[in-house]
């Protein structure tokens, strides 16, 4: 204790200790991978998941029908959801009480329901109750739009409220009406703020679009999941699932990268 020079030698610096902990973590990870690789039956895995013959038979339909339909369904739902979300957000911020109550009701309802339930009600419930059969694209647009719109409404509302009040006041001071000030000044700034969470919502909707299977699809209406399941059963093999998984990643990974770029950029601007 009296010899001060000895103490630092015995103790590890915090940085060294952190490095050691990290090496231990890496070692555990490597060990895990090695053990899994040793006990796995590679021949069986290749046969069940990675059968090139089967995979090649999926093309070009997996792209031209399934991937295309997933993108179309998602885009329809997202666009409608975005418009609906904007309307709901503006209603929630309105000074008119009934507008606020209605939009709060819609938001709470569709945020609270599983997307599957919304698909079932729209796709199967409406034809029974009212004798209207919407067809696939309108159903998926409505269902994804309602679910996505309810979430996006809250995001958009937060974005609008994050725009400094002085922006709105400056716009009104220049003689703009309330609507003009919102459209030209406030909403464009709000969307810049909320672009990352909106893109995340798009990723979620991409996956939710698979729920359309509950209303029954003809072959050329298959989206990725339905296509994968159909072929999985037909071939009694999991390769189609691996293929469609890669297709989903083809959509979602670039979106994630875009979000991360935007977040890094807005972080720098601040």
């Amino acid at each position, binding site marked *: 204790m009296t010899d001060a020079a000895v103490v630092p030698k015995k103790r590890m610096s915090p940085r060294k200790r952190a490095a050691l902990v990290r090496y231990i973590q890496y070692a555990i990870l490597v060990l895990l991978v090695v053990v899994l690789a040793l006990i796995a039956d590679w021949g069986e895995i290749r046969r069940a998941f990675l059968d090139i013959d089967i995979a090649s038979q999926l093309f070009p339909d997996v792209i031209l029908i399934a991937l295309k339909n997933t993108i179309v369904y998602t885009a329809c739902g997202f666009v409608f959801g975005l418009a609906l979300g904007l309307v709901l957000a503006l209603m929630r911020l309105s000074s008119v009480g009934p507008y606020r109550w209605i939009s709060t009701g819609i938001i709470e309802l569709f945020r609270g329901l599983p997307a599957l339930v919304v698909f079932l009600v729209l796709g199967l419930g409406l034809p029974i109750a009212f004798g209207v059969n919407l067809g696939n694209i309108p159903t998926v647009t409505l269902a994804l739009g309602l679910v996505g719109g309810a979430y996006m409404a809250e995001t958009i509302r937060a974005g609008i409220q994050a725009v*400094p009040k002085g*922006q709105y006041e400056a716009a009104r*001071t*220049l*003689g*703009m009406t309330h609507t*003009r000030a919102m459209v*030209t*000044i406030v909403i464009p700034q709000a969307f810049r703020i909320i672009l990352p969470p909106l893109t995340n919502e798009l990723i979620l909707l991409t996956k939710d679009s698979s729920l359309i299977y509950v209303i029954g699809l003809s072959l050329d209406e298959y989206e990725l999941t339905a296509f994968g399941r159909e072929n999985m059963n037909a071939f009694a093999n999991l390769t189609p699932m691996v293929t469609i998984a890669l297709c989903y990643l083809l959509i979602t990974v670039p979106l994630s990268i875009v979000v991360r770029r935007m977040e890094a950029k807005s972080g720098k601007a601040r």
Partner: protein
Amino acid sequence: MTQTETTPAAERGAAVIDVQNLHKYFGDNEVLKGIDFHIARGEVVCVIGPSGSGKSTLLRCVNLLEEPTSGTILVDGEEITDPDADVDGLRARIGMVFQQFNLFPHMTALRNLTVAQEKVLKRGKAESLEIARTNLEKVGLSDKADAYPAHLSGGQQQRVAIARALSMSPDMMLFDEPTSALDPELVGDVLAVMKDLAAEGMTMMVVTHEMSFAREVADKVVFMDGGVIVEEGLPADVLGDPQHERTKEFLARVL
């Protein structure tokens, strides 16, 4: 209270801003307690007073950014406190400059100056651009036309904000502490622009802590405290020879 007849500028024209018995409450808090006040055409009026005395609230009532609780405000003889008044048309005629600039960050300096000309005054693109460029030049920032606000200094942003207000060809300008958010070395440029404006005969109501600006440029100085106008008159009188104890105390603190 010194009467405004003593100010020489009152002879230049009739009152363009005429505030009568103005009261403003925020909840139970009475912030303006019966303000009577007017500005003649071409007059520069500086409003001074301690923090929380209601200066900003008074200024914001003049273009109805705050709704007066009671009282009458006439602008150019038109009663703007009338529920049927054309508030948007009125605001387009009154320029306002904020302490925090409030430039639109998603638009270039030039676009900041043209957007309301096009959307509110319905001026054509070419005309708006020409007016915008003239006003940018006037505030000495022609070379910053394509810059976004984030790339401008505070002083430059405030001058763009003044140019933006001027581009609407306003009859009068309201300034709420336009230099208070600026680094000291940037204050001069903004004040110089305001002095030019005053020299051109613009009607101006300026809330400010810049006593030298008030002394040099103002036709009338108004001292507010606790939601009332305590004293008003020529700058030499109010700043140089205050009659009220509260004015003396305030000036002793800021001068």
